[in-house]
């Protein structure tokens, strides 16, 4: 890990431990939990887009697979939640392979629309054949591990953000590994990678699977936290929302995914006071931030810090 990443990582852990202590309000923690769930999906998409250069508008599909498979297995078959969550991740991974083999030959708009089509098909399947149809179903058991059931808001906050930290740790190490360098190379020039003997297609499929698995994990956590799910949470709008998180946070930096997820999750909550105007204000903020902070929040922040440091050095 680089120095900047280590510092950011310690800040993250510090904040995770401190937030429930400082603010005991259930509301704050609930918003925090949803930010964490979204962050998991966003990290996956950030690796896929920022590092492997592949667009996906179908993350909601994998998110939905995670939620539905895990809920059905634990509710109707009675599998332990950890097993059902892992099983859901495997199903999402298989779906990712099936989709990515033909889809990753496509580029740009075409890849975007193929993944969008996939997400919508999953959504329609959930609507038509999912338990409860369009109205969904409830009574999904809470998350439990080795006989200990997580049912408090604080418990879920630590569980979900603990997983975000773990996923982040793994992902940062991944992008600084040989595989990560290969991914960035694909982003620069596929042709050159092929010429150097990299198996570009296999790598892309692997990253696609990784992003699907992250999204599936987030979906399972969502289902076992809320204990009620319906297809509407897994529509195209969720995919677009995740894309928005990654872009607002900064596509070239993995930390951007977390910041973007928090910002986009918290923003509608802050806008509640505008009542009827909230959609309009939300849209305006998004438009302006996309126009004026093109690179995303985190890369801009890093530039600012570097500039400040430059000042400090110059003064001495």
């Amino acid at each position: 890990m680089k120095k900047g990443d280590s510092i950011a990582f310690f800040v993250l852990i510090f904040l995770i431990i401190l937030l429930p202590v400082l603010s005991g309000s259930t509301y704050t923690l609930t918003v925090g939990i949803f930010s964490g769930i979204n962050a998991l999906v966003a990290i996956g998409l950030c690796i896929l887009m920022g590092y492997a250069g592949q667009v996906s508008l179908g993350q909601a599909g994998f998110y939905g697979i995670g939620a539905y498979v895990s809920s059905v297995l634990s509710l109707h078959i009675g599998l332990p939640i950890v097993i059902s969550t892992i099983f859901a991740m495997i199903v999402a991974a298989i779906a990712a392979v099936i989709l990515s083999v033909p889809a990753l030959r496509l580029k740009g708009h075409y890849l975007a629309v193929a993944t969008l089509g996939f997400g919508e098909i999953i959504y329609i399947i959930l609507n038509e054949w999912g338990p409860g149809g369009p109205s969904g179903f409830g009574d999904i058991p809470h998350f439990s591990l080795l006989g200990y059931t997580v049912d408090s808001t604080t418990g879920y906050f630590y569980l979900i953000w603990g997983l975000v930290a773990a996923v982040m740790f793994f992902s940062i190490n991944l992008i600084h590994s040989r595989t990560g360098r290969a991914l960035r190379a694909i982003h620069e020039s596929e042709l050159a990678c092929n010429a150097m003997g990299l198996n570009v297609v296999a790598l892309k499929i692997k990253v696609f699977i990784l992003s699907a698995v992250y999204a599936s994990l987030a979906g399972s956590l969502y289902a076992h936290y809320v204990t009620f799910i319906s297809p509407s949470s897994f529509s195209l709008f969720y995919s677009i929302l995740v894309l928005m998180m990654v872009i607002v946070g900064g596509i070239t930096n993995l930390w951007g995914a977390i910041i973007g997820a928090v910002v986009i999750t918290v923003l509608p909550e802050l806008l509640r006071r505008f009542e009827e105007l909230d959609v309009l204000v939300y849209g305006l903020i998004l438009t302006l931030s996309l126009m004026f902070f093109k690179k995303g929040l985190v890369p801009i922040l890093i530039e600012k810090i570097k500039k400040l440091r430059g000042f400090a050095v110059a003064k001495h």
Partner: protein
Amino acid sequence: MLTVFLQFLFSGLTVGAVYALVGIGFNITYNATSIINLAQGEFVVIGGLMMWFFSESLKLPFLVSVAFTIVTAGIVGLFMERLTIKPLKNPDLLLMIMITIAVSIVLRGLLMLSFGKNPYVYPSFTEGEPVSIYGAIIQQQTLWVIGITGFCIIVLFFFFKKTITGKAMLACAVNPTAAQLVGINVSKMVMVSFVLSAIVGAIGGIAITPISLMEYDKGPMLAVKGFCAAIMGGLGSNRGAVLGGFLIGILESMTAGYIHSGLKDAVALIILLLILFFKPAGIFVSKTMLQLRKF
């Protein structure tokens, strides 16, 4: 048998016509700028709702309302391009697409504020008995929708093939730098493309509202379907978008009628995926053309 089939066919052609218009709208902006304007669906909603406002609320005569609605949509397209697309110099294409999504949220917010969440409807353009073909009942408005779509297609065809402005826009699509060098005002062409696509979308909205009603949040679904239509026929090709639009519309209504209404969206999407996987360039664009495209 035949009666039912024809009934489904005509309802498919009606929705398909609107998908085709949205698809053409996508093509117009894509051809001039390589941008996919995902606010395209909102233009259709603006068309339907503003038409209601002018004709039902202000009680203006029919043609005046149509003219005002088209002008309003054009102005919205103009402002969208000048305020959000033009200020960006050399932006990333993905960022542009996200901005159009953000603008569509703004437009949706404005529409919700001014019209609320209720669906709106106004009477068909002509009153009279529905037409009967082999026992299938076809509302007159259906014929209007199909006729207006056909008219738009013909006008756009002549615009792009015969007028200097149209040809200049196509030139921008092929090579913006070269277009600039021969004295085409690329920036102006981009602006015209947004206005034109807004107008085409609004015309679709004006025509379809008496049949399918219009509400503020119909935009995104229309955009997805129209985008599918454009991709199916090959992005950039207008006759492809028309064929794609009608194909999706007919498939949807056939699936809804013969198999199961909930599956109508799935079938169109599955066909779309198959086309993408086996003939990614679409029906009408050749592979060589696709490779020339930068995105």
